[in-house]
């Protein structure tokens, strides 16, 4: 511990002199190192996509999913440490079930987002715990209004509603691409193609194999959070890869 501002990063219970909680910043770094996750809000729903990095060739395709439903009307995509994301999803499931058993109805989107933000925030307040090394995108169909909403929950406990968002590795390039889309206007069917394209094009060649996971909650899926049907997803991914190869070929010319 030499200069001013060092030695303040061992726990979340002490601020640094310039008002930072370093453990939270480090948790965000963990998120940035994991595969890309993105969410696109459309006119008729929300699409979530994830670039799942595959460290081993022998992994069973489709296993260790990073996008999962937490209730019929809500689903999450995680970026960062997979076990941390899984823990967050598991808590979200409990919140949904708990709300339903007490109030007799599906949890409203705002309440779910707020309760999850509170949960994440609790891990930034105590010496004995570490903040989550994962951020999640939450896609919900609000049961009262029938509107589709996209939230981002961060390790700090921050929770914001977005039209489009990308987190994880390559998020800056992906965010630029998402920003160019007609968010809130395009259909989910179009957004699936765009999501696949963004995941494929922002994927870093240096990384090993990856799988592109796509899920949505929209009118076509009956207002329920589901995997994008295999034929639609496969075609979107194949088209994205073809386009990328064509681009590469043009560059080579």
């Amino acid at each position, binding site marked *: 511990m030499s200069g001013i501002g060092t030695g303040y990063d061992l726990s979340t219970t002490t601020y640094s002199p310039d008002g930072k909680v370093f453990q939270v910043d480090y948790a965000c770094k963990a998120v940035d190192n994991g595969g890309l996750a993105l969410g696109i809000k459309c006119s008729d729903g929300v699409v979530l996509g994830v670039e799942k990095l595959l460290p081993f060739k022998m992994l069973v395709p489709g296993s260790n999913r990073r996008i999962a439903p937490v209730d019929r009307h809500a689903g999450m995509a995680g970026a960062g440490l997979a076990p941390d994301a899984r823990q967050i999803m598991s808590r979200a499931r409990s919140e949904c079930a708990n709300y339903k058993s*007490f*109030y*007799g*109805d599906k949890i*409203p989107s*705002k*309440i779910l987002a*707020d309760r999850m933000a509170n949960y994440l925030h609790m891990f930034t307040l105590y010496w004995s715990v570490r903040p989550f090394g994962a951020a999640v995108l939450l896609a919900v169909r609000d049961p*009262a209004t029938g509107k589709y909403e996209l939230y981002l929950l961060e390790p700090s406990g921050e929770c914001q509603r977005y039209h489009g968002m990308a987190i994880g590795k390559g998020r800056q390039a992906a965010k630029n691409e998402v920003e160019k889309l007609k968010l809130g206007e395009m259909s989910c069917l179009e957004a699936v193609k765009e999501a696949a394209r963004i995941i494929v094009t922002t994927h870093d060649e240096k990384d090993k194999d990856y799988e592109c996971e796509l899920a949505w909650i929209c009118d076509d899926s009956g207002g329920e959070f589901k995997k994008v049907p295999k034929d639609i997803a496969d075609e979107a991914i194949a088209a994205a890869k073809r386009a990328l190869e064509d681009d590469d070929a043009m560059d080579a010319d």
Partner: protein
Amino acid sequence: MDYGVPAALGVAPELMEEVSTGTTIMACVYDGGVVLGADSRTSTGNYVANRASDKITQVMDNVWMCRSGSAADTQNVCAFVKNAVEEHGIMSGSDEPGMADVKLVANVTMQIAYRNKDRLSAGMIIAGWDRRAGPQVFGIPLGGSLEKCDFTLGGSGSAYITGFCDDTWKPGMSREEAEAWIRRAISIAISRDASSGGVIRLVTIHEKGAEKQMFEPAQHPLAYDELPVIRREEVVA
């Protein structure tokens, strides 16, 4: 009940009994709203502790509750529900403060009634109107079950009028028809049930809001063999 109070204290044993609303309560849906009805007798054993009590309590602007059983229990359940539902409205950022989904209020009430079923004697009816599902009536009887229905009855007086109600219920009544139907049913219960009596209170809830009404015994429809009430001023005149 013997509470071991010495007679010298001058407290009649029946006054030591729980203040309970041996009651007639009911509610029904009509075309565009709901009507809740109740008698107004609160008894402590044989003693009429209150002859003009109000057993229809407001939970939210658009949801009201009929209470039967222990007055203390139901008043407190109602206060808890009110609190929980209002807090929920704030948490969910409702754009109509004061309004709540009827189903939500009914569910919260049921949870409280069920989780504390060993300690409570509370039978309640939740009725109201909301933008999402229109007019709704829910019955929450003693054990803490929850049933959505077109109409439901509660309290000791209900035993005397279930047959009447089953027989004369019509779906899709107008507001006037529904109010008259409930007044008729409660007046019949009052005529036979010793622990129901006093005035008939009605609360009608619809899209525009809630309205309270009260009918004195002289205005009650007469049951079989009943003599009409003669008002004091009529006698004097």
